[in-house]
C-alpha cells in the first residue's frame, strides 16, 4: 500500500512538474460571479452552475454543453472584416448600421443563408446605445435553433453578446439567464476611454 502511495506521489509530482513547466489556462472552469476578460476590456457576471471557457478578449459559457445552450461574449476591432462578410465596423456607425454588419456576417456564413431575422431593434448595452437581433435557423443537423445578439460599438471596438440554443425547450428556458448576463455586462471605462469611447 505504502509502495503504491509512493508511486502515486511520484506520478503526481511528475504531473505537477509538467504542468508547472508549461502553464496553460484551464479550458473550462466553473463560472463564479463577476468575470473580467483577461485583456481587462469587459466584465460580466455569469450564473452559478455554468461553465466558462475564457480567451483573452472573449468567452464562451454553457451549463449543459455548447450544443444545448451557449453564451458568447466577443470583441472585434473596427476596420477588420467580420466573419464571412468583408464588411467592417467603422467609428461613428449608427447602431442600426452595426447591426447590419452583424446580420450580414451571419447570413453570409456557410450553411446560414437560410437564417431568418425575427427582430432587429435598438437596445442598451453596457449603458450605451446598441442593438438587438434575433435569428432563427436550422443547424447542420436540421435542428431548429434561435440566437439573440446584442451589440455595441465603443471606441475602436465592437462588443457582442450572443445567446444560442435549440428553439424547443432550451432557448426559452435560459433566455432570462442570458438577459441577466447582458444586464451585467460592462465595458472597462479605462479601455473604452483610452480607445476613444463614443
Amino acid at each position, binding site marked *: 500500500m505504502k509502495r503504491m502511495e509512493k508511486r502515486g506521489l511520484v506520478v503526481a509530482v511528475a504531473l505537477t512538474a509538467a504542468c508547472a513547466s508549461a502553464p496553460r489556462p484551464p479550458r473550462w472552469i466553473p463560472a463564479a460571479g463577476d468575470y473580467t476578460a483577461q485583456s481587462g476590456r469587459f466584465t460580466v457576471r455569469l450564473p452559478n452552475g455554468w461553465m466558462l471557457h475564457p480567451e483573452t478578449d472573449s468567452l464562451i459559457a454553457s451549463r449543459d454543453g455548447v450544443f444545448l445552450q451557449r453564451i458568447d461574449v466577443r470583441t472585434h476591432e473596427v476596420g477588420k472584416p467580420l466573419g464571412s462578410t468583408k464588411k467592417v465596423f467603422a467609428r461613428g456607425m449608427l447602431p*442600426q448600421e452595426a447591426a*447590419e454588419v452583424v*446580420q*450580414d456576417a451571419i447570413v453570409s456564413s456557410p*450553411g446560414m*443563408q437560410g437564417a431568418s*431575422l425575427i*427582430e*432587429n431593434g435598438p437596445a442598451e448595452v453596457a449603458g450605451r446605445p446598441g442593438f438587438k437581433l434575433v435569428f432563427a435557423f436550422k443547424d447542420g443537423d436540421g435542428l431548429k435553433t434561435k440566437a439573440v445578439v446584442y451589440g455595441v460599438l465603443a471606441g475602436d471596438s465592437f462588443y457582442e453578446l450572443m445567446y444560442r440554443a435549440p428553439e424547443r425547450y432550451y432557448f426559452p428556458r435560459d433566455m432570462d439567464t442570458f438577459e441577466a448576463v447582458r444586464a451585467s455586462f460592462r465595458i472597462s471605462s479605462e479601455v473604452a476611454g483610452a480607445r476613444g469611447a463614443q
Partner: protein
Amino acid sequence: MNQRAAIVALVVFGCATTKLPPATSSGFRLEEDERNLWRQAEEAEQRFEAGGLVYPDAELESYLQEVARRLLPPSVWAAIPFRVRVVRNPYLNAFTLPNGRIYVHAGMLARMDNEAQLATLLAHEMTHATHRHAVREFRDLQNNAAVALSLNSILPGVGSVAGLSAVRGYSREMETEADDQGLRLVADAGYDVQEAPALFAHLKEQLVEDNKSEPFFFGTHPALDARIENYRRLIQAQYGGRPRGFSNAEAFLARTRSIVYENALLDLRAGRFVAAERGARKYAGMDPSAARGPFLLGEISRQRAADGGAETALAEYRRAIALDAAYADPYRAMGLVLYKRGDKAAAREAFEKYLSLAPQAADRAYVEQYIGSSR
C-alpha cells in the same frame, strides 16, 4: 504483415474496378456501393432543402430543367433523374450529387450571359453523374488506401499520405472527361460552343477579385488557365469548322433577372462590393423601370462608405424614388445618409415619409429614435 502476406492480400482482395460503363450505355445498373452513395446524396439533398439553402423558384427551376433536358435523351433521364436547383450562395460554383441533383450557386447563374454558357455548365455537371465519377472516385480512394497499406509493408514510407497522393490523379482525368463529354453534349444540342470559354473567363475574373483558390467546379486539376486552354483546344480541334450554334441570350436573361438581383444582394451582404455593383448594374440594365435597381446601387455606395459614396447613394435613391414614389426603402436609406451628415430636418422628412409608406417596418423603433432626436 510480412511482404508475402501483403502481396497475397493485395491479390486476394483485389481492387474494386473504377472502369464503369457510363449511365448512357444500355443495361446500366447501380452497383451496391453506388446505391449507398445515392442514399447519402438523398440525405444531403434533404439537408439542403431543410436548411433553406435552395431558392424556392419553381419557374426558374423549370427553365433550368428545360435546358438540361435538351442535353441528354430521355433514356438517360430514366436512369438518372436529374434535377437542377439554385443555391443561395454568391460564390461562383456548381456541384453534382451522384443521384443527378445539380446545385448551381446563384452567383454562377447571375454571372452568365446566355443559355449556351448555362448549357456548358450543366453538361459538365451532368457528365459527372452519367460517367459515375462519384463511385469511381470513391473506389479509387478505397483502392489507393488498400494499395498504400500493402505498399507500406513492402516499402515502408511509400504508403504515406504523400505516397497515396502520388498514385492518385483521378480528379484531373474526370474533370477533363467532364469538359470533353460535356462540350459534345452542348454541341449536339445545337448550342454555340464558342461561349464555353466565356464562362470560364467569368470564373477567372471572380477568382482574381476574391484572391481565392479555385472552387469545386474546376476540381483540383487542371488549374483554371490550363482548363481554359483545354476548352479552346477542344473547340478548335473538334468544332472549329462548324457553324456557330445558338446562345439564347434573351430568353436566358429574362428568366434569370430575379436571380441577378437576389445575388447582387447576397454579394452586398458578403461585403463583395465590386461583385455587388456589377450585379446591380446588370440588373438595372435588364430592367430599367425597376426602382430596386438604383436603390441597390445606392445601398452599395452607402455601405461601401468610400469617398463621395454618400452623394452617389443619395443620387441613386432619388432615381429609385423617381421610378416608384411609393417605394419606402429609398426614403429610409436617404434619411440615414442625411442624418449622419447632420442634415436633421431633411433626414426627419425622409424618415417620416418612410414610416408613412411602411408603417409596419421592422426597423420602426430605430427610425422613431432618429426622428425623435432630429426634432
